């Protein structure tokens, strides 16, 4: 078919949709290979339509690419906006997570060396996720802070989403470090319920104070209450059966309170600028 081109009449009929199947098939196959005829057909396209499509294309091409984390979340069914919020959480940055993992790995290794360090690990373990929650809302590090303060968006929802994301990431890290502990594996899980209880208590306190302060209060209380007994060799006070039940009750209670008051309280996400 060298040298054969579509005549203008054929092009017009094809572009208008008035071409029978054989003409259309020939035209389409030819257009794949011939730039001249492609040019010839360009006059048949509505310029406004072409322009509108171009604007949309440019918009999408210019918007920032989704990060890997966002794409995974969207695949899992989380809404696009929520995924972006979660991905912007300061705590979920690589360096920060590595620091947490490093500290806990050190604590786990130290526990192998000396039994007393096991108790220290148990006291320190809940602080990892808690610190993560605090950092997630620390004004200085949060890239979405200004925008977040301005939206008519329930602070509670952001709080819960971010906290869930932080826990989802930090708890496995702490758990992994815990599995490196010597002896039986119950210590590896003994800090889970206290962490849950402490986190829920911190969340409940955010109605009165900013998340960072709430976490600080809760964490300090935890260390003050458990460190003396633990270091004296009685870890049962912090993580024994009684303590587990206590923290479970705290978690459920705080969770229920949050659920009941979610529409009536405002969360102070940070001091306004």
């Amino acid at each position, binding site marked *: 078919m060298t040298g054969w081109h579509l005549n203008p009449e054929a092009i017009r009929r094809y572009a208008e949709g*008035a071409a029978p199947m*054989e003409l*259309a098939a020939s035209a389409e196959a030819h*257009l794949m*290979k011939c730039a001249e005829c492609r040019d010839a*057909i360009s006059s048949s396209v509505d310029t406004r339509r072409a322009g509108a499509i171009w604007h949309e294309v440019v918009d*999408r*091409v210019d918007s920032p690419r989704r990060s890997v984390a966002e794409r995974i979340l969207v695949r899992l069914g989380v809404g696009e906006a929520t995924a972006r919020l979660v991905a912007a959480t300061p705590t979920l940055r690589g360096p920060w997570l590595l620091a947490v993992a490093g500290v806990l790995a050190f604590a786990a290794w130290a526990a192998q060396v000396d039994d007393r360090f096991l108790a220290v690990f148990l006291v320190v373990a809940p602080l990892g996720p808690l610190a993560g929650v605090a950092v997630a809302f620390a004004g200085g590090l949060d890239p979405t802070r200004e925008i977040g303060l301005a939206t008519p968006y329930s602070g509670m929802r952001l709080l819960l989403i971010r906290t869930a994301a932080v826990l989802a990431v930090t708890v496995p890290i702490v758990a992994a470090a815990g599995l490196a502990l010597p002896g039986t594996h119950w210590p590896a899980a003994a800090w889970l319920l206290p962490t849950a209880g402490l986190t829920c208590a911190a969340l409940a306190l955010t109605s009165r104070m900013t998340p960072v302060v709430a976490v600080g209060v809760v964490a300090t209380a935890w260390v003050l209450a458990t460190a003396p007994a633990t270091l004296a060799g009685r870890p049962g006070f912090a993580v024994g059966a009684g303590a587990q039940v206590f923290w479970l009750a705290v978690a459920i209670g705080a969770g229920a309170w949050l659920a009941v008051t979610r529409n009536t309280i405002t969360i102070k996400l940070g001091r306004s600028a």
Partner: protein
Amino acid sequence: MVSRPPDPRTDSQLLAAVAEGDREAFSELYRRHLPWLLVRLGRRCSSPELVDEVVQDTFVAVWRSAGRWDRRGEVAAWIWGIGIRRLVDALRRSRPPAGELMEFAGVETSAEEHVLLAVQYGDVGAALASLSPELRAVVQATVLDGLTTREAARLLGIPPGTVKTRMMRARALLRERLA
């Protein structure tokens, strides 16, 4: 609109430039390929909004995956491959009534046109025209649009086995008529 001298680069040079982030090249590629893509996709889907969306998706994909073109064949064919697959996905999602897909198959031709076409396009055209609409649709999807059996099955809403048997029947019939 300021008129610019036509860009002398070939499509393949433009695509290489797009892979490096050249927006001018992308704009030129869009200018060259939007018209035929719009018409060709428009003949396979009667909803202009859907076609616009699919074309948009296609060009965004062209921008993002320009580096992945294997440099074989025509750029137009590569763009078409992206476009038709997006169309298949979009039609699958919105599930239009089957009638829409068959529109292209039912154009009336006058007796005069029939003769002219037979002269211009030879017997193949006439043989194709004598196939039933289902067989023609399968031939169009696999041979002309370049879809695989699975993709053609998704587009036409029939099982892949049916696509294969219809292709076999179409081939047998065409061979018979062109023998």
